[in-house]
Structure formats: structure tokens, C-alpha cells
């Protein structure tokens, strides 16, 4: 089975295959032997090609965190079938919360025509006030938040109407 592993925003298509001696990872056109052995308590002995490291691992769902050489890296695993399903949704776009926080003001309502850069709403997270502006000209289809509401990061705040197709 192939999965897309996203590290630092860069996707890599990978699959594992068994070899007489263990496992081999196929990454695009190249491949190398690899091994992972648990040492208990979140610690693992990891081998990739000739490189060996003791690492810490934690995962939740498709998200993995690896602590190696004093740095923590977050890796997202994407099943290509899921990605395909997600890509099929409508043409309208939306504005997402850049951080978790509380909505302070909402300055647009459904049906409003907005210009690129126009203030849509303001929000606060801890000590920072942030202004959310329209990424482009368009019409507001839906406002999915209200003042005082707490929102997680990447929550959809405002949805834009799909651009009207030019009718011939």
C-alpha cells in the first residue's frame, strides 16, 4: 500500500516492501532498507540505510511525531484514497482560522460583496489580536463563527460563494 508522507509541507510517495532480511522503503524512484525496533517507553531504534538513531515516537491517527537528533519533526500520513475524496468537494473556498482563539468581531454577513484585503473579522488568541481579511474579491456565502466563540486552528470561519460561471 502506498501512502503520501508529508514532511515540512513536502509530500513523498512511499511504500514498504518485505525483503528476505527485513523491510525496504520505496520513495519515488529510490529505495533503502529500514528497521524499527521498540526499546519501550516511547523509545525506538531506527535504521534507514546505513544511518542508525535512537528516537522517540508518538502518533495519533495519521499524525506522527519523531524526536531525532534533538529535534522534533511532525509527519502527516495521507492515504491517497482519502486525499482523492477530499479533493472532490465544491469549487467555493473559505477562510480558516490561522490559530486557535476567540472571535472578537465579525464584520461581514452572507450576501456581502467584499474586496480583496477587506476586514472580515478580528480574533484574539491569548495576547495577540489578529485581523482576518478577504484573500480576494468575492461574495460571502456563509459566516460560520460569531463574536465570543472559541475556534480551533483551521476552523472554517467564512465561506465564499462559488464564482458565478460566465454564461455564454
Amino acid at each position, binding site marked *: 500500500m502506498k501512502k503520501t508522507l508529508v514532511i515540512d509541507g513536502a509530500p513523498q510517495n512511499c511504500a514498504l516492501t518485505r525483503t528476505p532480511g527485513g523491510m525496504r522503503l520505496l520513495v519515488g524512484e529510490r529505495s533503502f532498507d529500514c528497521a524499527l525496533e521498540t526499546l519501550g517507553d516511547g523509545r525506538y531504534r531506527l535504521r534507514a540505510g546505513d544511518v542508525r538513531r535512537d528516537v522517540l515516537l508518538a502518533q495519533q491517527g495519521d499524525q506522527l511525531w519523531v524526536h531525532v537528533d534533538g529535534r522534533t519533526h511532525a509527519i502527516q500520513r495521507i492515504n491517497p484514497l482519502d486525499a482523492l475524496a477530499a479533493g472532490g468537494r465544491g469549487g467555493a473556498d473559505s477562510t480558516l482560522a490561522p490559530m486557535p482563539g476567540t472571535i472578537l468581531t465579525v464584520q461581514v454577513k452572507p450576501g456581502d460583496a467584499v474586496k480583496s484585503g477587506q476586514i472580515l473579522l478580528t480574533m484574539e488568541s491569548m*495576547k495577540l489580536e489578529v485581523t482576518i481579511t478577504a484573500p480576494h474579491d468575492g461574495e460571502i456565502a456563509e459566516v460560520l463563527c460569531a463574536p465570543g466563540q472559541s475556534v480551533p486552528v483551521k476552523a472554517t470561519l467564512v465561506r465564499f460563494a462559488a464564482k458565478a460561471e460566465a454564461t455564454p
Partner: protein
Amino acid sequence: MTPQPIRRLLVANRGEIAARILRTARARGITTAIVRHPDEEGGLAPRLADDCLTINGPTPVAAYLDVAEIVRVAREWGADAVHPGYGFLSENARLARALAEAGIRFVGPTPEVIELMGDKIRARNFVVERGFPVAPSAIEADDPATFAQRALAVGLPILIKPAAGGGGKGMRIVRDASVLEAELATARREGERYFGDGRLFVERYVERPRHIEVQVFGDSHGKVVHFGERECSVQRRFQKIIEETPSPVLTPEKRGAICEAAAGIARAAAYVGAGTVEFIYGAGGEFYFLEMNTRLQVEHPVTEMVTGFDLVAEQLRVCEGEALGYEQSEITAQGHSIELRICAEDPSQGFVPATGTIHLLREASGPGVRVDSGVHEGQRVGSDFDPLLSKVIVHGRDRREAIARARQALRDTALLGITTNTAYLDRVLAHPLFAAGDYSTAFLDEQAAALSGKDEPLPLDLLLAAAALSDRQMVDAATSVPAIYAAMGAWRN
């Protein structure tokens, strides 16, 4: 006055500072309690306290800021003292007064001194009148109609500050007269929201300044001493992330002058308890009074590391009515200490706060390493509170050793499941200007590109191997096929 020992202490705070205060209280044989809102999950402090008291409010933060609620639980539990920690109600004179009326001691200075220093304009006037240096400024309340004009007369660039402010909230730098009105309006809104007070003042903004503060301590017998300075110039958004002592820039003469000025201000205010006098330090060696914080600071551990004093124990002793019992000359500093604030935030995205669950936690240890943590494995970190998770504090014989220990401690720190600033802090420590001690409050902004970590090599193959080999579906798919066919997988499809 006979000292009155504290037997039951309520810590009206949370996170790492609550845990840190509880440790000292426990060591002194004091029965302890902590407060928490029903919406809060986990946390280290509740595990260290004898009792955990529920405080109610529409949001967790509102409960921690509710004077009546804190006094209610303190009274019901039978506290004979309340330690406010930092933030929340730590500089709130109403709490100090309400507790006094309830016959409960407040671990901090008198309400009068809290009020004096909490009003940045009154504090500034108090300091000027007693002959200590302050930066040129304009105060809105003097004549609101001409405020904008007088603000410009201070000379650009200027810094707008809320009169009731602190902690960097509502502060704005203005370099261009055309944006002054808009920035004043924003600062006023923020002042109203955070402090319930929209009054402003402006100060000449010292370019590339350092932020140096001095720990002071007074007892109820009229004695005031200082515990030396802390260099707090490594800041993002006006908030410190790395602090150290001694400051790499002060000569012994300057150190004496700035520490004596701080102790002089505290003496003039008849200060009782732990306090910190903050100064702006210019490139020419000039320094101006910035503000006085009438509480324990986040960065107090660096002072503890070099002096050997437990400042929380000193606070409790002073609150009990004991005399400090030592002279200024008996407070000496050994070696060098650095504190690193581990925050749930993403430095690559403008330090936006991050949320998540700490699935795996490993804390640093070793010679000269101390960790003041507020979190535990399995804890969910939300956006209700400040992003500070824990502090790594190191001590070395000299600055070089302290930096080396700090860097190793950061590499040994793992908080898997949430984005933190540990790698960023390590890059700051590795920067040649930090190593040289040549930095100002503008350091992080000026060196943003060098500190971004974009050129840091990624152990790509190790990460891919870890991600694939820990994925049940990928492993199952490989092992469910006999080895001979599986080996063909690379080219079969």
C-alpha cells in the same frame, strides 16, 4: 511583631508557576491548595497540591480573574495566605484588600504599592520625583485634546502604552506620523479589553534597546536589598523567551548603578516582598525606568540559580513577618544562568499559539539543569491560557558553559504531539550574536531569516522510515505478501 507562620497556603494560579510555588510550600511543611476551573484538564500543579478547589466562571480565565471567587474559596478552605503567582490577579490591589478584610494574608506587597506601580503614569511620576531616570514621554490624561500633538513632540519613533498595561499588551511602535491616530485607536481598544482602561501614554522608543531588570526584596522591618539583574532582551512581540544573568553587557560600575537605582526605587516605595524594577538600557549605556512589577517574575529562577536563594521561600518568610536577616553584601552571584521558555507556539508562523495533546514528554536533566514544568504526559493544551508550558533553566561556571548546557537541555526536551519553540530557542542560542552577548530587543526580528531554520538539514530518510514502519496499514500491506513477491513490488504496478 512576632512572625506568624503560614500553615495553609492557597496558590491562586496554574501551570508551571503554581507547581513551582507548591514545591517550596511543601518543603516548608505548609498544607497547600490550588484552584482550577471545571473546564480545565490535567496539569501538574493539581498533582502537587493537598487540595484542589473549584473556581467557577464563564471561562477559565474569567474564574482566575474573579477576586470574589478567589476570596470565597480561600475563606471556605481556611487559607491563612494566598500566593497569586504571576499574571492573573498577582498585581491586583482589590484582591490584596479583599483578602486582608477576610483576615487572609496576600503574598505580595501592600495594596497601596500595587496601585502605585500598577498605574504606569503614577509610577513614572513617582520615580521622576525621586530623582531616578525615565524616558521622555507624553501622557494622554494631562490634556487629551493635544495628546496626538504632544506624542509627536516626544520625537519619533515613539512607543504607545496603555496606562494600566503590562506584559506587552496594547503596546505599539509608531515610526510614521501618518499612522499615529490609527495606532492610538488600536492601543486604546486593547487597553480597554485587557485592563478595562483605555488611557494611554507614549514614550520615546529607544532603538535597539536592551531590557534589563533588577530583582528587589523588602521586608516588613524596613530593609530593602537587590538580588542583581536579569537580561531579558530576547523577546518576540514584547514578550521574553530567553533570560540570563548576569547581563553580558553590564560593566561592574553600570551593574552597581542600575541595581542601586532599583533598590532605591523600592526603598522609596517602602516595598515589602518580591519585586522587579525593569529598565530600558540604551546602546550608549543610558538607562530609563520602565516599570515595576509587584510580584514574582517568570524568570526568577535564573536569580535563584546564581545566588542560591529560594525566592518563593523568601516571599513566604517576608509574608510571615520575618526579617530578611542578611545584608546586601551577603547576596553574591556565582557563575551564569539562562532560562528558556518552552511555549506551545509555532515560530515559523509568527509564533502563533499551538494546541494539541502532549502524547510523550521527556524533560532535560543533568548537571546544572532545572526544569520548572506545568504539564505532564497526556495533557491537552488548549488556547484558553498563555502558551508557556515549562521553563528550562541552566547554570554554568561561566556563560559559555551555561549556553552549552542550555543547548543540550533543549535537545533533550521532547514534547511530542504539540508544536513548540524548542528548536527555535536552540537556533537563538547557536547564533553568533547571542554567543557574543551582542543583542537587543530587536534581535529576533533582525535575525528572523537566520533563525528560521530553513537551512537546517532534514534527516529525511530516517523520518520517512519512522513514518512508514510505524504505520500499521503500510506494514501489514508489506508483510501480508510472501517475501518473494513483495520484493517485486517496486516495479510490479
